């Protein structure tokens, strides 16, 4: 069967909006267009009802209460609100925050900003598996620690952090625990009660919902967690996030979450099967290729592989009709290779040589085989012109070569 190109396999970056989600959203643009905060006419009431239905669906999906769901513009805003909001609200209690080096920039940069403002931040390293060391977390806690913020699923390597254990440690020490669950909500089970999560961020567009809408879960009981708002205004969302609610986006997010929960079991089974097939084909056909991140603690749709001796951007060029991402410096604005891959202890060279595959609800077996075929032949072609591969075949240890740095 002929495969239609381009093929989208970058579902960690964003997902297409499910047509069923779009359909659910449409009436809220033109017919039910009211402001959910309008209290004195039916346009407002209907909009509010739609928002509250979505809120209830989302709350149920993560085992929370409706009143604990704060709508935002996306996970970046949610992370900022959680981290800066806790730092300000709990400043009298302490000034120490614990996070991890593989977090998304939307967690790293707020933490760095707080660091510049005088907060102490502990940047936990990760093990070669990509997981944090729980003993290191325990050891980092001081009587000044006010927040532990550790992501649930990693956006580059798909590794799932042990949130149950982290939550238990935080609960034992009476510290607020925030997790960026952007890659996990709707993909794997998330239970804020079971995992003792106090704050949790995610956005709509990673789970087949629209862009520009997200959630911050803020726990109300045992313990009651409070955050200082970033935006001041009409006091929407229980005062934590002022601004007219994005009713269409919220309706779409609610529908997207509903579908993800309904289809989680079958999606997980299908996608992990396809992912395992892709992994097997690539690792078996391409010598000196390595999977990044612990395969036993990984999102079902996620795969990250380094192909030694070839550079990521040139690989992407060779598979131009396939949309994936690379940890290569050349593909980033900063010209630095992926900090996540470097933190695994990989040499920079393997970070430059990595490709991230993000399968999704609409990925087919034919697409996976097409991508595997294409990659196998492009890696072979590029290795033929790689001086590193030639040196490797001559028995030269590349780590011992004195390179002319530039």
């Amino acid at each position, binding site marked *: 069967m002929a495969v239609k190109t381009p093929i989208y396999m970058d579902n960690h970056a964003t997902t297409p909006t499910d047509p069923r989600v779009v359909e659910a959203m449409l009436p809220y643009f033109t017919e039910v267009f009211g402001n959910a905060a309008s209290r004195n006419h039916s346009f407002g009431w209907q909009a509010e009802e739609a928002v509250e239905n979505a809120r209830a669906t989302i709350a149920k999906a993560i085992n929370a209460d409706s009143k604990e769901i704060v709508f935002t513009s996306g996970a970046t805003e949610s992370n900022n609100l959680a981290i800066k909001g806790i730092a300000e609200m709990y400043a009298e209690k302490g000034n120490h925050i614990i996070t991890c080096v593989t977090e998304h920039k939307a967690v790293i940069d707020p933490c760095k900003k707080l660091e510049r403002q005088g907060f102490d931040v502990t940047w936990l390293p990760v093990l070669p598996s990509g997981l944090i060391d729980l003993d290191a977390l325990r050891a980092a806690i001081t009587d000044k620690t006010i927040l532990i913020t550790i992501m649930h699923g990693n956006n580059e390597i798909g590794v799932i952090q042990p949130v149950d254990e982290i939550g238990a440690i935080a609960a034992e020490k009476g510290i607020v625990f925030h997790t960026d669950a952007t890659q996990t909500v709707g993909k794997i089970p998330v239970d804020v009660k079971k995992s003792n999560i106090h704050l949790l961020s995610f956005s709509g567009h990673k789970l087949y919902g629209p862009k520009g809408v997200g959630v911050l879960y803020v726990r109300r009981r045992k313990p009651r967690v409070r955050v200082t708002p970033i935006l001041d205004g009409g006091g929407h969302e229980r005062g934590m996030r002022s601004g007219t609610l994005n009713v269409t986006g919220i309706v779409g997010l609610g529908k997207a979450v509903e579908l993800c929960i309904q289809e989680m079991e079958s999606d997980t089974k299908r996608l992990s099967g396809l992912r395992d097939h892709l992994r097997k084909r690539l690792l078996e056909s391409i010598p000196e290729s390595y999977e990044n991140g612990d395969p036993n603690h990984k999102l079902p749709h996620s795969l990250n592989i380094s192909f030694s001796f070839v*550079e990521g*951007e040139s690989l992407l060029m060779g598979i131009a009709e396939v949309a994936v991402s690379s940890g290569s410096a*050349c593909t980033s604005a900063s010209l630095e290779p992926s900090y996540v891959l470097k933190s695994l202890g990989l040499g920079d*060279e393997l970070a430059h040589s990595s490709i991230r595959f993000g399968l999704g609800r609409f990925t087919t077996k034919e697409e996976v085989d097409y991508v595997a075929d294409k990659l196998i032949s492009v890696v072979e072609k590029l290795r033929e012109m790689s001086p590193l591969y030639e040196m490797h075949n001559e028995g030269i240890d590349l780590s011992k070569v004195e390179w*002319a*740095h530039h």
Partner: protein
Amino acid sequence: MAYSDKILEHYNNPRNVGSFDKTAPEVGTGLVGAPECGDVMKLQIQVNNEGVITDAKFKTFGCGSAIASSSLATEWLKGRTVDQALELKNTAIVEELNLPPIKIHCSVLAEDAIKAAVKDYLEKNNKEVPEVLTAGHHH
């Protein structure tokens, strides 16, 4: 980023990929860059008794622009004398391939690889190495 047609053309049909025997006296080899920086270029020239480059080959680990820069360099080197090879500047590569600013370092690396190959050839054959090749070049 969108690539220029010329970069794509060199990437899809790289010229002169391969290796000469680096121990041969008529061969000069330049190996520049570093794996952790994301690009390594090996460029080799084969020089006849008149000092004319009769053949050139490359192997490159790097992005498409780095591959295209070294591919183009080998094309341009053939038929030049060793002295003329040193006149080849990275700016000419930038212009020919239409490299965006973020990829200019690829052309600089190609220029460095040419210089390193010429230097290797000259030293191997006990010829005088011009000053431009002995001063350390950093960027």
